[in-house]
């Protein structure tokens, strides 16, 4: 097999893996957009906030420590414990549910029936607010995220030797595939499967779809909109947490994490804002597309195409297929 083709295959696989991570973020957007018509600009910051909370709890950081120290004149920073992720994970989920409740109670409950653009602006406000809170609560330094359920079972990192060996035997060239990426892909598949099953075969899943479809009808069968919205934000918060863990484990928990939300935008343009499968396929296409493009065309134009490729692709979709690959085509009946 020609060498270039083998390289391309490795790039393709790595693209798929990167795409899974984009899809995870995009998924959070789709969930909230479908159920409430809100385009949640804060989804990326939610991932950041979730990851920081997880790390903070694990390392035994005292939340708002600088603030407390400044007001009380103390000098406390750590509780002095190190918790396994098996404990910090449920606690963080609890924090994300609390956040979902607060967002609904203090922001969107007062904006019911407003124009989509106003809801969108509110989420931009929320994004900056949350970023500030995250900074105040856990500090702004870059943190390493070791996700270990117990002391031994950690998120695997580094090259997958089995794939390396197998590909070496076949092609005479070992592929570098990160174990973390493989885990992320498996987790994403499980997560999507669980979400789809939940929305299809349970009462509240059905209620979520019902609210997304028609508010008045949902009320008339006894669904509380407030409750469903808190539920949807909680689920989106959980998805943000999963994305935050994967990205955080990959590149450290830092504020640039919130920018992955921007990469999710082209994914949504491709997949459509209302489709869960669309978010997945869109993520994969962007991931594979940008890696292959960089591999094939990058050297000719001086590289760094990964920064803009996704947006240009999204732009093309906006021009030729604005509803995305899987989005519902909007047909106004006259």
């Amino acid at each position: 097999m020609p060498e270039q083709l083998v390289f391309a295959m490795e790039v393709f696989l790595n693209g798929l893996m990167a795409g899974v991570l984009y899809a995870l973020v995009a998924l959070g957007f789709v969930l909230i957009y479908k159920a409430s018509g809100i385009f949640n600009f804060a989804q990326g910051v939610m991932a950041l906030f979730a990851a920081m909370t997880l790390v903070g709890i694990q390392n035994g950081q005292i939340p708002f420590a600088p603030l407390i120290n400044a007001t009380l004149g103390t000098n406390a920073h750590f509780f002095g414990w190190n918790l396994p992720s098996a404990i910090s994970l449920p606690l963080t989920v609890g924090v994300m549910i609390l956040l979902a409740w607060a967002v609904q109670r203090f922001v969107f409950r007062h904006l019911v029936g407003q124009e989509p653009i106003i809801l969108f602006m509110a989420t931009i406000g929320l994004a900056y607010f949350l970023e500030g809170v995250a900074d105040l609560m856990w500090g702004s330094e870059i943190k390493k995220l070791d996700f270990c359920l117990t002391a031994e079972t950690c998120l695997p990192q580094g090259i997958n030797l089995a794939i390396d060996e197998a590909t070496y035997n076949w092609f005479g060239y070992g592929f570098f595939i990160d174990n973390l990426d493989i885990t992320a892909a498996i987790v994403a598949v499980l997560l999507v499967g669980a979400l789809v099953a939940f929305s299809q075969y349970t009462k509240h899943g059905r209620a979520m779809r019902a609210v997304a479809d028609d508010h008045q009808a949902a009320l008339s069968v006894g669904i509380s909109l407030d409750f469903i919205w808190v539920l949807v934000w909680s689920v989106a918060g959980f998805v943000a947490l999963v994305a935050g863990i994967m990205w955080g484990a990959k590149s450290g928990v830092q504020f640039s994490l919130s920018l992955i939300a921007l990469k999710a935008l082209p994914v949504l343009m491709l997949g459509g804002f209302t489709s869960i499968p669309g978010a997945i396929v869109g993520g994969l296409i962007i991931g594979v597309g940008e890696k292959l493009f960089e591999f094939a065309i990058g050297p000719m134009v001086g590289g760094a195409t990964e920064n803009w490729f996704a947006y240009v692709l999204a732009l093309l979709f906006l021009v030729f297929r604005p509803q995305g690959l899987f989005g519902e085509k909007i047909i106004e009946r006259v």
Partner: protein
Amino acid sequence: MNDMSNDSYVTEDGRTIGGVVMEMKNITLRFGGVKAITDISFDIREGEIRAIIGPNGAGKSSMLNVISGFYVPQEGEVWYKGRKRPPMKPYEVAQQGIARTFQNIALFEGMTVLDNVMTGRIRQMQAGLLSQALWRGKAEREEIENRAQVEKIIDFLEIQHIRKTPVGRLPYGLKKRVELARALAAEPSILLLDEPMAGMNVEEKEDMSRFILDVNDEFGTTIALIEHDMGVVMDLSDRVVVMDYGKKIGDGTPSEVRSNQAVIDAYLGVAHD
């Protein structure tokens, strides 16, 4: 017939009707300075088909929205099952067992007929979130039981052939029937139908009339409905409230209402027979 006693009565076609389920006492509803409903009182009894009729803009739909909690009246009391009802959100009213349909149809267009009807069962399903998330124990059992109930209703309303069709693709008449199925799935104490036959052709109207009578007959469901079509109303209902300009001008059996001079003047006066 118009007394407020709790005694049962026998209808014109020989069915025995039970006590009062719901009583509206001196309801007044205003939108800003406009009075939509002025001081209206009437009751709905168990097992009867109760109609609210009146010309356009008489306040019939407003009255239905008061019953289902979508509007809160400024004055008056709603009594339900012998208790005064505090101001409630529409979803709370629905959870108490008052199901409704809408004049302009409010279905979940993107969902299948089966899923739409299943949402009607939300009141009957009690499993907690965790149980649902894991799909173990109560959630699984409930899902299967309620699914069986829903299939019965789907059979009853003869919509088996479109069970898996997304509602958005159905013609108008069938949508109306699906909406009825969803309301019926809640096993309501009172079923509110907002113009169930609006916009239908003669054949569809006959079908719908038959289904309404069958539902009442088979499940003993109490039904309150609003309708324009006088002929239909007179055939279907046991008792009729007549509204005009937000006021009640008549209340009684179809034959009583037909011979009421105020009703004839306001509403039937144009008839040429």
